[in-house]
């Protein structure tokens, strides 16, 4: 799973349609420093020298402020909550967004698992794609655990969108 970069290059070169159905990971195009799959789902981009796109780095930071107190460091899961690095790969993007926004409950005799809805929380909602992209990058083993050492610069558009969202 360590070749999103080369796939990206091939995709640009040939524009082959089968790339789109291959996975929900591979970057097909970029826009103002954000990367997307052929299905227009946000995704990561890791350069050969390990430089990560801004959203992946930003997602690392936001994840470790908002999510890791329940889901453990690096999305690896904990005694309390599941490993989100897998959820981001296994779940459809829109389902992932729905669960983060609205929460979900699994409460039974043997399980008391409650995910809160973060729909009202700008610290999460303004960075939802960042967190998703970061978790997908780690869950697909495109990046190892820990803080990404090198990152792309934050684009002006990302900065403007962030300011507008955070108010």
């Amino acid at each position, binding site marked *: 799973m360590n070749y999103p970069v080369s796939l990206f290059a091939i995709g640009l070169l040939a524009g082959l349609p089968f790339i789109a159905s291959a996975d929900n990971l591979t970057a097909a195009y970029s826009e103002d420093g954000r990367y997307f799959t052929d299905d227009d789902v946000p995704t990561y981009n890791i350069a050969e020298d390990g430089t990560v796109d801004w959203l992946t780095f930003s997602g690392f930071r936001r994840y470790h402020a908002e999510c890791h*107190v329940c889901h*453990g460091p690096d999305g690896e*899961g904990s005694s309390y909550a599941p490993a989100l690095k897998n959820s981001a790969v296994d779940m459809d993007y829109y389902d992932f967004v729905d669960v983060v926004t609205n929460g979900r409950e699994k409460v039974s005799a043997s399980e*008391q698992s409650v995910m*809160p809805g973060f729909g009202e929380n700008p610290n999460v909602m303004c960075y939802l794609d960042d967190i998703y992209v970061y978790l997908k990058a780690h869950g697909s083993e495109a990046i190892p655990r*820990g803080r990404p050492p090198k990152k792309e610069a934050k684009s002006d558009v990302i900065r403007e969108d962030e300011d507008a969202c*955070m108010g």
Partner: protein
Amino acid sequence: MRKLSLLTSGIAVCVAGMAFANDDLVSQMDNPKQWAIQTGDYKNQRYSQLDQINADNVGDLQVAWTFSTGVLRGHEGSPLVIGDMMYVHTPFPNIVYALDLANDGKIVWKYEPKQDPDVIPVMCCDTVNRGVAYAEGKIFLHQADTKVVALDAKTGDVAWEAQNGDPAIGETNTATVLPVKDKIIVGISGGEFGVRGSVTAYDMNSGEQVWRAYSMGPDSDILVDPENTTHLGKPVGADSGTNTWEGDQWKIGGGTTWGWYSADLDENLMYYGTGNPSTWNPAQRPGDNRWSMTVMARDIDTGVAKWFYQMTPHDEWDYDGINEMILTEQEIDGTERKLLTHFDRNGLGYTMDRVTGELLVAEKFDPVVNWTTGVDMDPNSETYGRPAVVAQYSTEQNGEDVNSTGICPAALGTKDQQPAAYSPKTQLMYVPTNHVCMDYEPFRVSYTAGQPYVGATLAMYPAPGSHGGMGNFIAWDNTDGSIKWSLPEQFSVWSGALATAGDVVFYGTLEGYLKAVHAETGEELYKFKTPSGIIGNVMTYEQGGKQYIGILSGVGGWAGIGLAAGLTNPNDGLGAVGGYAALSDYTALGGQLTVFALPN
């Protein structure tokens, strides 16, 4: 009448203190065959006079009986034993069982509160609960959703209920309560949700609120007497709870109160510590942020503060000050003094005069602590009592969006809530500790009621250049601030210790071991692996002429979240990533009480 005399005469305070003490609980605590309060006694010494199990025979210890709680979450605190009855609590949904020890542990009653599961996700770091309390024939439970419930100890019937906080704005509870005199004194959690911390006293018989003291805010909220409440011997003055904050930040200022409480009936004072100021981004809250991170001594009857000591002004690392205050009477420089000893998250062990609030000792109880060079101990200095912050490790000075690396200890502290024990025989404190450091990057966050309000990214890893483990179990001399011995542990020690007159000290480990070590030397005398990791506190009792040791297993809490997958050190380079032990390789979820005894 009673309040008048208490306020007007110091002598009356002493007399009244004796006369109106909760005589029932005091006598229950004085009986070493019982474990009548979570903290062992009002002094939080966690010391038992029982010596049937001792350093010579503890190696023969066996499991006597076990009990499954039916809940698979982090199990903190311990059971109580009053007479023939044992009271066992669980994490959310906070079930309480009364077991008949004279009848093979038969369940006499079970109480299961109905709580909205929406409280679960606002409990930062697992749905733990540190146990029930007993007084005057009642069991007191402080539920996750902050409802305080008094139950008939014989039947489990509800005597009264009081709602202490509002989970919708992130107010929750994990702590036990302090039953003292005619009051039940309770705290609150939610420092990572912008909750303003408070301590509240309820009438033990009716559940009516008697007083509430906030950690920050106007003088009428924080219950100070500006002229007579002191900080290091000087009056705090007017508006001390707002004048070190910018704007209205104090209203979401943190300083929550989720630790252990102690009490000195002769002084009529109760003692506790306040938590971190919120947010974790120090740039968003300029000033000392009083009275977060503070040791507090308050009048039991009125809540009015006698003295404060702020350990970590303007916190930059999440070093909550909530850990227990252990009360002792010991000699310092040839003079017998009434002492208070506190092992803070910030890595400093403090010894104070608990009557006056004078600071006597402040020393590192883990040599790797590096964010400070130490506390200014000169009463004539401008910075008396303040820790000198090392610029390299200052997340404030390095600024927002800068990753400060190599800070020791990590945010979970050199010690978290897991309580230490004190043996009057050895005059040593036995302290479960964390040996973990961190990188910390603060950034701007916005506040939404009931949502996490953190504002920093952290990476934690075992203390570099040490034994590679994440914990130590140490013996500490609180009169001079020195480590007597230190036992390395693979994981943080997250279990409360027990010291006994049998010269044995007990503690649990995150892998699930119950360990017994020699009180003088630390030599390991016994260990047994229980079904799940231990974050509970060791207790002891006697039943039918036999001494028992009890411990709750059930991994979880902060330790279960942070250590489940193992830690990595981003500064080690890629080769070392994943090189540290993962708790999930040693233990899994559980919920069990294991009781030990010597063979017949």
